[in-house]
């Protein structure tokens, strides 16, 4: 089977605005980088239908789509990110030629959250506006299949992105016949024909303006909210973390935001950092301060990829604990199983960024720092699709182990977290995830703040604290002795010899392994 590249291009921000105006699909996943960051895509993506119309136009320009074409069938298998290059490859398969979009490495929408609500949807999408605005934009496609049908295809984007399911949608596929309809109404009618709870999938029949067929869309998850301050307060003692000041890097959402609530609910002070999500961070601070004191939570901008010293000089206070939840989009579309530039990107965040942050905090502080490095069970499972991420986190673990060995005035606690429900892990496919508070609270309470918690404000009785300290010291000794035995018998199981098991002395009870 041979393959010929017919055309290539990138869609830029202006193209996004152009097609949103043409089709009427202003869904934030295409238009708003901050909102898109909290979707599975992680960044703004091109309207799939825009790419389809571009491909149709190019195929028509080359005589491969003519008036004889009876239908169009499209499956969206990957996101196309803004500014990434898309290639239109023509493949000859047996007798038939098919145009394949490769490297698809590539107003307010309605908000339907419930499939039952979606099941009742039907209506009409006007194609007038799309027809007017698309005039001359896809001239070859217009000639081949008719401007009215081009506009009808364009509004399929509006149907899924703005109407049904609307805000929280992913366009899955469509298959349409090009028909001569007797109804000259310039609109596409739609009605939901099937919903599938297993995949949160919706199938719709569409008909009108020269097309008839079906559209498949998915109801994606809204941004994942973590437990509220009230909920956290029910399981945290009011002065459990009093006296501590925690810098929570990447604390504007997800596990970082949850940790901030836990520490603050326990009487500690938190400084939450954000790289881009200022609104999320300020909303979190408002929630925390509304339940505690006005200075319980501060917000600063901190990008771990930029110089740490100049950014952290704004702290103006000593930090006793660092929680490092800085992250970027983990699940990426890739060409090939290993992309070295992706590894570089992850190393910068999960290794260099962590070390720089610890170094600067130590330099500015009179007391030793306790830092938490959240690692991942991906190191145990080693999924092929995210090896760059896994490698970077593994490098991070090695760094942490050696920071403890090298007496850097930082005691690093590492645990491998299981898959937890966050924006990044909220896939359409059903997946088992652990409850974040159930996983994080024991780690924070038993492994990070326990030794620190020695002030009179701590509600844990002194005797219990003493026994706990002795217990941990004994556990340290036992593990140290065990490791010596392991070394003696040359039993090479490196998983038992790294990170926190060695240096902190307790098994990561909450890792789910």
């Amino acid at each position, binding site marked *: 089977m041979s393959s010929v590249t017919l055309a290539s291009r990138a869609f830029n921000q202006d193209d996004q605005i152009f097609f949103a105006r043409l089709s009427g699909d202003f869904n934030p996943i295409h238009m708003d980088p901050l909102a898109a960051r909290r979707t599975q895509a992680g960044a703004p993506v091109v309207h799939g239908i825009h790419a389809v119309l571009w491909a149709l136009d190019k195929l028509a320009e080359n005589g491969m789509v003519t008036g004889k074409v009876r239908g169009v069938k499209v499956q969206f*298998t990957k996101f196309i990110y803004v500014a990434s290059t898309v290639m239109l490859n023509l493949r000859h398969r047996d007798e038939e030629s098919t145009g394949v979009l490769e490297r698809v490495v590539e107003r307010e929408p309605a908000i339907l959250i419930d499939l039952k609500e979606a099941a009742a949807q039907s209506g009409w999408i006007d194609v007038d506006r799309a027809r007017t605005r698309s005039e001359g934009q896809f001239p070859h496609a217009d000639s081949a299949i008719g401007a009215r049908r081009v506009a009808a295809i364009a509004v399929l984007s509006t149907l899924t992105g703005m109407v049904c399911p609307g805000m929280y949608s992913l366009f899955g596929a469509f298959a349409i016949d090009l028909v001569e309809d007797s109804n000259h109404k310039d609109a596409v009618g739609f009605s939901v024909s099937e919903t599938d709870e297993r995949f949160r999938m919706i199938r719709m029949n569409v008909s009108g303006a020269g097309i008839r067929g079906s559209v498949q869309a998915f109801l994606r998850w809204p941004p994942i909210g973590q437990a509220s301050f009230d909920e956290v307060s029910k399981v945290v003692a009011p002065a459990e973390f009093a006296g501590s000041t925690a810098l929570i890097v990447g604390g504007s959402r997800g596990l970082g935001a949850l940790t901030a609530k836990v520490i603050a609910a326990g009487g500690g002070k938190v400084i939450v950092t954000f790289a881009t999500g200022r609104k999320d961070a300020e909303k979190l601070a408002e929630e925390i301060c509304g339940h505690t004191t006005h200075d319980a939570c501060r917000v600063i901008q901190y990008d771990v990829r930029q110089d740490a010293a100049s950014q952290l000089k704004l702290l103006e206070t000593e930090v006793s604990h660092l929680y490092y939840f800085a992250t970027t989009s983990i699940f990426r579309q890739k060409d090939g199983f290993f992309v070295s530039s992706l590894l570089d990107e992850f190393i910068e965040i999960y290794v260099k960024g962590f070390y720089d942050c610890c170094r600067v905090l130590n330099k500015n502080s009179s007391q030793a720092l306790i830092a938490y490095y959240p690692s991942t069970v991906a190191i145990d499972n080693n999924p092929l*699709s995210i090896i760059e991420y896994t490698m970077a986190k593994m490098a991070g673990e090695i760094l942490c182990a050696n920071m403890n060995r090298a007496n850097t005035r930082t005691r690093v606690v590492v645990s491998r977290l299981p898959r937890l429900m966050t924006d990044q892990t909220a896939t359409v496919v059903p997946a088992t995830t652990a409850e974040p508070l159930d996983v994080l609270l024991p780690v924070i309470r038993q492994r990070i703040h326990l030794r620190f918690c020695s002030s009179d404000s701590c509600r844990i009785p002194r005797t219990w604290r003493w026994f706990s300290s002795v217990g941990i010291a004994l556990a340290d000794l036992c593990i140290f002795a065990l490791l010596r035995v392991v070394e003696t018998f040359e039993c090479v199981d490196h998983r038992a010899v790294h990170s926190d098991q060695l240096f902190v002395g307790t098994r990561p009870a909450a890792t789910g392994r």
Partner: protein
Amino acid sequence: MTDQDILALFTKIIRDLLSDESITLTMRTKREEVPNWDSMNYINFIAAVEIELGVKFRVADIESFEDVGAIVAQTSAMLR
């Protein structure tokens, strides 16, 4: 329909889905070993199999399939 027939059909479906004729599934193939067979395309694959063979998988099965062989076995059981 034998297990090998089902496997051949799965290979055809995934090749069409990912536009990659080089893919050859075996009973031991894991999803993460196939380039671009991500979570979204896993759903697309399952949906295509269901339409093609007139079967319906349970959510618990979809979550727990460890390799292609497990999907073949479950499909075969449903066809019996």
